[in-house]
């Protein structure tokens, strides 16, 4: 596997405030990554450093095997779409897309035009006059049509309705199938994208909390629902990440794989087992109460 991004003990500090602390991970070629975490966890900062828009305070960072800073060999192979992107006031949508067409070597004009139609964008309208959702659509079109070998989407769909979000997922997957590339997707809507992700990296408080294949995460945790006493007894000695009691019923989420025998045994006791969704798992992991349990996951 080719390593597209290699990050080794990356740090970012602002004065005495540490935003990113000793973060290390690698991004491999032609996979879809999810970079997840709460607001202010440091996701955007990391992506800004990968694209050389911010400078690391320490550590190593290589993209396509080279330093990205002022390096056109690296920069021309990346496309970074972020929610906070600013556009010149006087530019129309058409201007932005034409400039993107000039600057991205793999730009596909036909694809861009099709996307403009799909998202129903008024190309003659000024960027300043666009709604939040339309602004997001412009970013998505640039990100998809640029076909950059490393495409990074940071909260790309603020203000987009469910139909448009679905359209984005569909087009991204279709185009990814035809033109494989590496995609990093950072989002809060984990449930919506969880089926798409092949690898998940979770950041919390500037540190890596989780870095695993999505498939192996899906069976990582279970929620047991049943009579309170039974569930409590069953969960004893297991790694509890969440519990909730309603009346005489209780649900307890535990980490770890269960063997078939263990499952049968639980079901015989009247306990119902459901897998914990990626979103729930991450909510559990980053909600503050369970911080530091990462090691147990591995």
């Amino acid at each position: 596997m080719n390593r597209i991004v290699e990050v080794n003990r990356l740090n970012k500090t602002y004065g005495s405030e540490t935003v990113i602390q000793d973060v290390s991970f690698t991004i491999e070629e032609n996979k879809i990554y999810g970079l997840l975490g709460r607001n202010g966890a440091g996701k955007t900062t990391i992506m800004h450093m990968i694209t050389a828009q911010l400078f690391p305070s320490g550590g190593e960072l290589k993209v396509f095997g080279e330093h990205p800073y002022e390096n056109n060999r690296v920069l021309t192979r990346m496309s970074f779409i972020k929610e906070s992107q600013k556009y010149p006031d006087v530019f129309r949508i058409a201007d932005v897309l034409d400039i993107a067409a000039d600057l991205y070597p793999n730009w596909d004009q036909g694809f861009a035009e099709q996307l403009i139609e799909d998202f129903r964008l008024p190309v003659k309208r000024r960027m300043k006059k666009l709604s939040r959702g339309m602004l997001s659509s412009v970013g998505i079109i640039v990100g998809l049509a640029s076909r950059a070998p490393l495409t990074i989407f940071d909260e790309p769909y603020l203000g987009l309705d469910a139909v448009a979000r679905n359209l984005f997922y569909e087009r991204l997957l279709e185009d990814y199938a035809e033109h494989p590339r590496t995609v990093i997707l950072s989002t809060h809507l984990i449930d919506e994208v969880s089926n798409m992700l092949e690898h998940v990296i979770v950041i919390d408080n500037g540190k890596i909390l989780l870095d695993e294949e999505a498939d192996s995460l899906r069976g990582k945790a279970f929620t047991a629902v049943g009579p309170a006493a039974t569930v409590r007894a069953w969960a004893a000695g297991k790694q509890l990440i969440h519990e909730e009691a309603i009346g005489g019923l209780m649900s307890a989420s535990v980490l770890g794989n269960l063997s078939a025998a263990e499952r049968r045994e639980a079901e015989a006791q009247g306990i119902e087992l459901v897998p914990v969704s990626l979103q729930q798992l991450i909510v559990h992991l980053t909600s503050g109460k369970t911080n530091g349990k990462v090691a147990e996951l591995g």
Partner: protein
Amino acid sequence: MNRMAGVMKMHWRDKWSWIFIPWVVVLFSFATNLTIGGLTGGEENINSGGLSSIFIYIFVCSLIVQGQTFPFALGLNVRRLDFFAGTSAMGVLVSAASAVVLLLFSLAEELSDGWGVSVHFFNLPFMDGISPLGRLGIYFVVMVHMFFLGFVIASIYRRFKRTGMFVFFAALFVLMSVATFALTYFNLWLDLFGWFANHYMDIFVWMAPIAVVYALLSYAMIRRATI
């Protein structure tokens, strides 16, 4: 494609900021002068100084354009060097083209003896004895200087954000205050004006290397600027 050319093409899309607005402003000022000239029947010599508007405008344009396009260009993965080079080239080209147009106006003004109504808008009083080439040079060098002055101030903001602006303007204020005080205290104001009157050509000549210094400083700051 060449990324620097891409940056220039990006600027070229904003023809209003770069070309139309400055010329609308300067031609409006010119029209006002002509009207007054017409009303006075050409009996008075009119030297309004309205021409300065275009030079002040390019300073402002440079400030604004950098603030608007730098975050955008970086967002499209443009190198800082390409942004700097492309934007500088655009500033120099626009200055050169403007200088040529100003010279044409200046020659027409000379031939028509102040447009028939004694209006001296494009020729400043001291320019009578200066060859067309010299005038072209003056227009060009002043404009390039103003462009990079705007650029370097905008770069301070890009690199050091609000703190940088604050320190810069505080320092400028202190420097000006001290200079003003010193000139008054030592009774040097008249000498200063006298010096300007005798050495204005030197000032134009010096604007060229000063503009280069601004450009180098700008690049040094832009290189380390973040979003």
